[in-house]
Each structure stands twice: as structure tokens, then as C-alpha cells.
């Protein structure tokens, strides 16, 4: 047991996967000599050589399309998109080929690739470096969308992503890269499709994923002072989605707040809220609420704190969960 950062855990996962399977190749922009702008691929070139870890031309559609072809030749590419918003040029390759090739060919071809996307904000990044783009991928059938919130999950989920027979968009919350925890690697946590109750509670369920999980945990801690005992569910994988764990939690608590850093409209949180009310209507004492980023382009660094869901905003939402069985005054205006 020792203190490990999420960045180190991701690096270890890549290193171990490459050691275990020589079909695994890692490539992208600056992933070789530099070790990636966040150092996630640090040392892989030295350890495994140019054939297994290499820099590419600066072209994201090219990187993902090249990975598709390499996967067709029997390899297992793990590619890095340097930042969330810089992955957009690859979107056609992802949506039209990566996601669909298995389906188009009735299983004759598959695309077992991992597309690593450092995402979301909270790091003071200038524009185009802080997007929460998980919704685009989650809305695309054929992709798995994974986002760790803890150090052991970072290791285990990335190993599982690389071993998975389907393409995985692996969303790494940038602001958690250098958060550390006591962990022993290698480690195997719960598999894809399984959400985890990070903190049990009786009064309401906070559903979170990736960068919003620490916010939810902090809010749950603060809520104790207000007399609320909150449960926190960490989704871990957005696709496949674990209805069972989320539903069981909300049926127990009767109240639910969904937290996401991404802008709210038509987002993953909206899907979760809809699923919860479809499945838990008779257990609910209040409408399912969402706490999300604002419906604005990601703000400049000095204003990102206004945009990001924080503990106060989560507690405000919890306070509106009709504890006195009174309607939410916000919806009563004429």
C-alpha cells in the first residue's frame, strides 16, 4: 500500500497491459518521448520501444482512423486525444466507424480500441481545454463510455477497457489526475456496468460520475451538519449504465439529485433523471433534481467556478427535495 496519483495508476495500467499483451499499442500526440502532456504515457516508449508506443502526426481523425485499421489487423490500439475539445475532429471516425463497425459487419469485424480523453474542467484551462464531452459519446450506440473517479478504478477500469472486445471512450477527469490515494496496484475493482455506492445514506441519493464524485462526497459530508444522511452513487461507466444499483438506492432513499459537470440540457444527467423517475415513481417523495454546469460554452478560467457544480449548489438542490412535502416554489410562478 502506498500513495498513488490517478495519473500514476493510469500509467501503470498501460504499462501492465502492454506487458501482458504484445498486441497493445499506444499512440497519439506527444505520447512518446514526452510521455504525454499529462505524463500518462511516461516511460512507455523507453520500456516498449517505438513499435509499441509512438507519436503520430497532429491529426485526431487520422489517429482514430489509423487505430481502426490497426485493430482490423489484429492489434489493440490505445490512443490519446490530448484534450476533450481536440477530439472533435475525430468524431466522424468515432461515430461512423468505431461505434458501428461491429454492427455493420454483423460481428465479422470489431474495433477493440480505447480512446483516452482527458476531460472536464476545474484546472484553470483556457478555452477548448475543459469540455465535458461525455454526452456525445454516450449518445452513440456501440461505444462504451467509462469515467473513473478513484485511483483504484482508474487502474482497473483502464485495464478492463483495453481487454474489452468493444471500443471504449475512456474519459479521464483532468482535475483528478494528481489527486492521490492509498492504493496497491495492480487492483481489480467492480466490472463495467456496475455502479458503486461510495457512501451509504438514508435520506437522499446523489448520483455522480467522474469529476463530480468528489463534489458529491464533499456535499454529503457537509449535509450531515444540516441533518441529512446522503448516499453517493458513483456510476463509473456511463455506458453500460447500471439501472439496478441506481434504482435500488433511490427506492431506498426516496429522493435523488443527479450531479454532472457538463452543461445540463440534453445531457447524461437528464437521461439518468428520466430513468429514475420511470423506475422509482412510487418511491419518490420529490422530483428528481439535476445539478449541472450551466448551458453555456465553457467559461474562461476566472469564471469557471460560477459554472461548475459545487457543494453549495448540491446542498441547495438537496434542500429543495420537498422535505416538508411542499411544492418547489420555483415551479409555482405564474
Amino acid at each position: 500500500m502506498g500513495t498513488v496519483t490517478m495519473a500514476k495508476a493510469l500509467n501503470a495500467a498501460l504499462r501492465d497491459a502492454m506487458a501482458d499483451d504484445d498486441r497493445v499499442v499506444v499512440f497519439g500526440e506527444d505520447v512518446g518521448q514526452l510521455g504525454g502532456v499529462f505524463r500518462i504515457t511516461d516511460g512507455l516508449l523507453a520500456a516498449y520501444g517505438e513499435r509499441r508506443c509512438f507519436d503520430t502526426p497532429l491529426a485526431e481523425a487520422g489517429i482514430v482512423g489509423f487505430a481502426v485499421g490497426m485493430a482490423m489487423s489484429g492489434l489493440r490500439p490505445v490512443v490519446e486525444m490530448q484534450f476533450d475539445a481536440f477530439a472533435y475532429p475525430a468524431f466522424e471516425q468515432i461515430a461512423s466507424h468505431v461505434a458501428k463497425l461491429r454492427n455493420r459487419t454483423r460481428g465479422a469485424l470489431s474495433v477493440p480500441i480505447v480512446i483516452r480523453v482527458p476531460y472536464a474542467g476545474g484546472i484553470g484551462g483556457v478555452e477548448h481545454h475543459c469540455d465535458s464531452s461525455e454526452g456525445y459519446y454516450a449518445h452513440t450506440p456501440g461505444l462504451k463510455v467509462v469515467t473513473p473517479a478513484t485511483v483504484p478504478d482508474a487502474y482497473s477500469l483502464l485495464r478492463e477497457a483495453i481487454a474489452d472486445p468493444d471500443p471504449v471512450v475512456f474519459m479521464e477527469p483532468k482535475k483528478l489526475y494528481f489527486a492521490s490515494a492509498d492504493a496497491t496496484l495492480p487492483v481489480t475493482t467492480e466490472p463495467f456496468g456496475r455502479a458503486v455506492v461510495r457512501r451509504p445514506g438514508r435520506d437522499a441519493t446523489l448520483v455522480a460520475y467522474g469529476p463530480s464524485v468528489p463534489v458529491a462526497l464533499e456535499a454529503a459530508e457537509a449535509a450531515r451538519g444540516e441533518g441529512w444522511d446522503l448516499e453517493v452513487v458513483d456510476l463509473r461507466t456511463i455506458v453500460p449504465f447500471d439501472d439496478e444499483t441506481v434504482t435500488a438506492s433511490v427506492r431506498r432513499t426516496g429522493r435523488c439529485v443527479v450531479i454532472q459537470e457538463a452543461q445540463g440540457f440534453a445531457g447524461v444527467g437528464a437521461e439518468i433523471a428520466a430513468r429514475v423517475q420511470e423506475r422509482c415513481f412510487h418511491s419518490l417523495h420529490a422530483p428528481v433534481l439535476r445539478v449541472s454546469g450551466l448551458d453555456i460554452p465553457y467559461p474562461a478560467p476566472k469564471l469557471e467556478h460560477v459554472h461548475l457544480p459545487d457543494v453549495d449548489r448540491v446542498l441547495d438542490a438537496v434542500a429543495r427535495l420537498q422535505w416538508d412535502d411542499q411544492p418547489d416554489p420555483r415551479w409555482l410562478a405564474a
Partner: protein
Amino acid sequence: MTTTPPAVRRASPRTRRAAAPPDPARALLPSPQPVRLLDESGARIAVAGYPEPPTDSLRELYRRMVIGRRFDLQSTALTKQGRLAVYPSARGQEACQVGAVMAVRDTDWVFPTYRESMALVSRGLDPVEVLTLLRGDWHCGYDPAARRTAPQCTPLATQTVHAAGLAYGEAQQGRDTVALAFIGDGATSEGDFHEGVNFAAVFRAPVVFFVQNNRYAISVPLSRQTAAPSLAYKGVGYGVASEQVDGNDPVAVLAVLTRAVAHARAGNGPFLVEAHTYRMEPHTNADDASRYRDGAEVEAWGGRDPIDRLETHLRGLGVLDDAAVAAIRDEAEAFAADLRTRMNAEPTVDPLSLFDHVYAAPTPQLVEQREQVRAELAAAAENKEVAG
């Protein structure tokens, strides 16, 4: 008054004798005019560097082109009868469609677009499986892994990058596979074309990029795609050897593609070929070509018919006579008749198969949706029985 001119202006004999450094771009450039080994009447032209392919190959090329055209005409007819949802014809492009696939081995990979149905049939794929996409049964009817042929690609130019990745991956694993990527003139404007060519060049991947310039991207003429003197010039900027060829000259197409494939297989990196050809039919049956090109132009291209040219050449060589031509035509008719019969059968596609290949194993949500559709279908079947 006398002046002495500055010495620097005078080139010394030594300087004049020194050879200019070799221009690395020159070796990559295509021929200034498209390579042509048969003129429009089918008479042979000698061109240095391009020996005539073996006569047996040319006879086979002729045979496959005749069958390919018959397949194309049949497919257009099937579309008019409502058997196909849509058909993008390649009539007029037979030399390109057949010549290119004849230049590669069965173990090589082909990356076709939607217009390559004829090429795939010529590669030996089952025509019914090839037409599955256009009949609307599924997105790809053949087994791409078994046939080493990617699904026909509808998003433009995206397959060029796959070809680069596949070729590189094969080479990395010690196999001498070549990837042949088909692309049209319009798609060379897409970013993925440039990324595919660049990736292949940087990683010296054995890819042949084969551009069939049929002069129109649906309605938009080549002049709106590029200001380059030839699409083959797009190779030099990426360090890729290139050539242009008369795409209605089957002998030249086979000769140039054979050289391109050998170049790639020998480890010299990718090769880019532009074939100048013409689509005799509209973009698809849904298109009206009279809105953007005139009949005189179409007629002029009809005079450069690739099958007629090769037939003239083979007859001149004394390796094709009336009896042989008739036998090949009979074979093409039999091929079309068989295709008609098989396409007239109405296949049923199990709606529940929609859920089979979204993921290797379905998500819980897909299991739920599958059950819902199964119940709907069962209810509908029951209602039909009651009503009947």
C-alpha cells in the same frame, strides 16, 4: 574609363560544371500526361517503364470487364424494378474497377466506396452479398475479415485512414499485405483523405490510394474540388510517389496499378494513382445528370469505351476472336440471369437481429428493448392471425 565587372557575377567554369542537387520531389511526381498504353481506337502505344501486362491477364481483364458491365446494367435494372433501394453505377469505369482489383492478391486488403460494387464482384465476392447494402437488408452482406475487403464506405474518404492503419499494422506483424484504398475525385477534398495519405507516408505503410476521377462529385465538377493540375499531384506534398493514368485504358490501369502495388509491397511506402475516367450514368438512379452535364460530353466519353479498346487490342494480338467474345458475353448473360433469380427472392431479416451486434454482449438496456420488440412482434403476429 574602364570598369571591371564584379567577380561574383561571373560563374566560374567549376561552378557551372557542378550538377544541381537532385530534386527529391521530382521522383514523386506523376507523368505530365496520364499514362496511356492504348489509344482511343485500341492501338498500342509504347511507354517507358510500363511493360505490357501478360496476355493471359489482359484476356482475364477483358472477361471480368464484360461481366462487370453486365452486372452493373443488371443492378441498375433491379433498382428500377424496386429490388434495390439505390444503385451508384460504375458503367464506363470498368477498366478502373477491374484493373485495380486484378493488381492485388486475395491476401491483400481492399477498402472500397459505395461505387465499387463492380470491383468487389470482380474480386470474386458473391454479387448478392455485395448488393445487400443497396438492397437494404443490412449494411454489409459479405464477411470483410474472410474476404479481406472492408465494408463499402459511404462516409467520404474515411476509409483511407483505415487502409493506412491496416497496412501499417500488417507490416508491424511481419506480413507483406498491401492495402488498396479506392476513393473518388470529390472525396480528395475531405480532410480524412489528406490524413490518410499523410499517415501512410509518415509510417511508410504499404497502401495504394486509387483515385477514380470520374469528373463529377454528384453534380460538382472537378474544377470546384481542386486547382491542382492533377489529383496525382496531391501525393508530392506528403512525400508520396504518384502517377496518373488514362482510366479508360485497361492495359494502362493494370500496368500502373501493378507497379504501384509492387512499390508498396517492396517497402517503399504508399503510392497514389489518379485515373482519369468518366461515370456514364448519373450519380445514382436518384440523380438527374442532365442538370449539370450535356449529352455531347457523355457521347465523347462513350467513344473512349474501355471494353471496346481492350477488345480491339486483344483481337489485334490474335488472342480474341468472335467465338471467344460470344462465349464471354454468354457467360455475362448467365451471370446476370443468376443474379436476377437470386435477387427476386425476398429475404426476410429477423428484426431481433437488430440487437445482436451492437456490442459483443448486449447491455441490460438492449436486453430490455429486445424483449419489448419481441413482444410487439408476437402481438402483431397474433392480431394478424385473428384478423386472418
